[in-house]
């Protein structure tokens, strides 16, 4: 006898669960791609006074 019997609900909802997993992975990939584009595209560059280390002077 198997130590862990898979509940019938997992079998029944397998398709839906795989679909949700695929959507979440795609979403994470999109966020990663957007982050790379934003950071390398200069959207989040520090203001020049902070880059030169002269903040507050």
């Amino acid at each position: 006898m198997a130590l862990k019997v898979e509940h019938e609900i997992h079998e029944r909802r397998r398709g839906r669960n795989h679909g949700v997993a695929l959507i979440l992975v795609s979403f994470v990939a999109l966020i990663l791609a957007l982050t790379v584009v934003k950071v390398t595209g200069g959207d989040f560059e520090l203001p020049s006074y902070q880059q030169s280390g002269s903040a507050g002077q």
Partner: protein
Amino acid sequence: MSDASLHSNVYANEPQLSDYFALLKPRVMTLVVFTAFIGLVAAPGSLHPVEAFAAILFIAIGGGASGALNMWWDSDIDAVMKRTAKRPIPAGKVEPQEALYLGLFLSVMSVTMLTLATNWVAGGMLAFTIFFYAVIYSMWLKRSTPQNIVIGGAAGAFPPVIGWAAVTGAMPLEAWAMFTLIFMWTPPHFWALALFMKSDYDDAGVPMLTVTHGRKSTRNHILVYTVLLAILAVGAAFTGIGGPIYLVVALVLNGLFLAGAVRIWARAEETAIGDDYTTEKKFFRLSLWYLFLHFGAIGVEAFIGGWATWL
């Protein structure tokens, strides 16, 4: 009923992912994606392809979210109408509250993500569009005025404006020319549908123009809106989104559309019943091509440079 048969019935109605997707009105989403994309390419300036993809995706999800909220609110009339009776809520696949929560979650998510991916003007406009469709149209005006289609048309007309704003952070006249095109196109498109899906809206008690003002008045309205649409559609050729190719497309399509509207206007109801609304159905099919080809031409002009290339 035995336990076994009770369970099999429950499981047969268990929602699949496709049922949740159906809540987002995928056919409306294709129009949203297409017109938002054209707004995005017609706008001066450019976005990184990843940003552009994200913008279109989140505009589409925002449109889908408003569709889910609409299905939650309208599930009672959807159950009555033949055209909508198989939607997930009236079909018993999805609980109304699930549609509400999905709609609210996707609304917040899409607006937030569009703002982060592009700018707050586009995000704000998407939020307004969702509010307009779900609250102003679905909850307030759809059941209270025969002009519901005219007002509801505005919600469907915002996506190209949002697409434009995603690139530029602004909403100039050219963006609103695209808005006007969809806004003026929607009433004749839906009134033609209402003419041949005649019992649906009557049964649901939705104050469609055909129900409140009669079918002759609806035919008059189709003609008036089509004339105004033709003027605006051809006029748009001379704005920043137009060009010679758009002008030719607009002249041909508006000629055909006007001819169809005149035929609908001239018909007696008995004649229409006699041939099972052939003219109205033909006009409805043409209206789908009408919008697709107008926006296609705007997209082409964006790529070739519009009038500037020729003059």
